[in-house]
């Protein structure tokens, strides 16, 4: 099935950026709020992307309601990929037509899209998503449903370790960042990367990795302290660096 008609739920920055990406690729795409869903004609929609924030009880409920109203063939995708896609898939009542899509920031300049396969996601659904990503001119990687997927899991480990190195007092923040730039060809040091991502987001990811995968991911106490202090990185003007 070729995806031609896309509905994005969530009139937020990410939702609009993804909408732009789809429209530029010539797909018919609409960005709407969940409240407007009731008035929407869903018959022509091939794919619904849920761009609402990370999961809550409310989200689970809304996916169930959306799932019920969609035509049989329609694929339901969520951007909430970090925390248990399979659980959301099951509440959508169409687990075979349920998939995670993770657009590597910054959207709409995304180069990488991770397609997340839940336990029951069908091959047909994966194939349709692969085709969609190809038509957007992006690179698709299909990954299993697991905390942090692939990219976030590996980079979270590096950022966490950089914070440990800082906490142990092995080197200064600038030294740590410049070493990874010169020694490992990173375009950005891991502490700068953490500040851009948001320290609260990093902490949540590590907590989940630690809970599901194992203690090798336990977050550095310094990271926890920074989040408690409200120093969340660029977005609050202060993280490992000062942006004020």
């Amino acid at each position: 099935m070729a995806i031609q008609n896309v509905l994005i739920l969530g009139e937020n920055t990410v939702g609009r950026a993804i909408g732009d990406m789809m429209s530029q690729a010539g797909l018919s795409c609409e960005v709407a709020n969940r409240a407007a869903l009731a008035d929407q004609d869903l018959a022509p929609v091939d794919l619904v992307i849920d761009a609402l924030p990370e999961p809550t009880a409310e989200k689970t409920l809304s996916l169930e309601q959306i799932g019920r109203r969609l035509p049989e063939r329609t694929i339901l995708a969520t951007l909430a990929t970090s925390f248990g896609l399979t659980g959301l898939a099951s509440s959508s009542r169409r687990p075979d037509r349920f998939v995670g899509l993770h657009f590597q920031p910054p959207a709409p300049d995304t180069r990488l899209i991770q397609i997340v396969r839940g336990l029951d996601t069908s091959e047909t659904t994966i194939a349709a998503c692969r085709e969609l990503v190809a038509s957007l001119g992006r690179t698709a990687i299909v990954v299993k449903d697991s905390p942090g997927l692939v990219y976030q899991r590996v980079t979270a480990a590096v950022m966490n370790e950089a914070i440990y190195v800082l906490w142990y007092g092995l080197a200064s923040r600038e030294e740590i960042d410049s070493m990874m730039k010169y020694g490992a060809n990173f375009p950005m040091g891991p502490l700068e990367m953490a500040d851009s991502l948001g320290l609260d987001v990093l902490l949540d990811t590590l907590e989940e990795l630690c809970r599901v995968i194992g203690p090798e991911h336990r977050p550095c106490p310094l990271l926890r302290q920074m989040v408690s202090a409200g120093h969340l990185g660029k977005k609050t003007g202060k993280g490992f660096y000062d942006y004020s």
Partner: protein
Amino acid sequence: MEIKKVGVAGCGMMGSGITQICARSGYSVVVLEANEELLKKGLSNIEGSLARAVERGKMSGEEKAATMGRIQGTVKVADFADCDLVIEAVPEDVELKRRVFADLDRVCPPHAILGSNTSSIPIMKMASATKRMDKVLGMHFFNPAHIMKLLEIIKTIATSDETMATVTEFGKSLGKTVVPVKDMPGFIVTRLLVVQLLEAVRALQDGLASARDIDEAQKLGLNIPMGPFEEIDLVGLDVLLNVADAMYQETKDPKWAAPPLLRQMVDAGYLGYKVKRGFYNY
């Protein structure tokens, strides 16, 4: 103290790069190998690398000849007798390195500084094999040593400030960015890189995605030139396993416990690019 003559123990991948950058920067270099055959191979690698630099217009034929002229190969450790600094770059084996440091301590002049290019062994293990612990430090170059701009210098609890200052100047004279770090397991770059590489292996082992796809995700997401599996294949799976085991031994922290998949591949002899088979086939 001024460094005029440099010794390099070992002319493998790292030793030959270090020899080359020192000689290119104007130092007289004595490079030691275990036997004539390995020495010949190491020197011809340096010659080949310089020839490529000439082809690319990075240096003239005269400069190449002058650089080779400053390099003296040897198989006798006694030829380090007039060196001001010796950099050890033998395989990552603690006992071997301790023997080399004991030898260096015996033959080198009392003022000479001894540096180790280890990426994971605590420097104090080597320093304690000598009677000059204040003059022993880590000098961690990155592969390829004549190109990568970073030099981590590692201070043990016994290394003197004077030694650190002399080597900092020396590193700058090679055109390196010199960063001092403490003698803690893995120092800094290795530590962060190994976390990245081991996590990639665990993600593969958990069946999250293929090696190729994980590499692609890391390259596109992080904007780095090489994915973790390409990097591991180049470094050598055995080398990564040794580093992880050494870090685990030192810290008992589960994050350094090598994933079984890595150990199986090493047991199977799939060591990476050097044997044409690792996570990829070559």
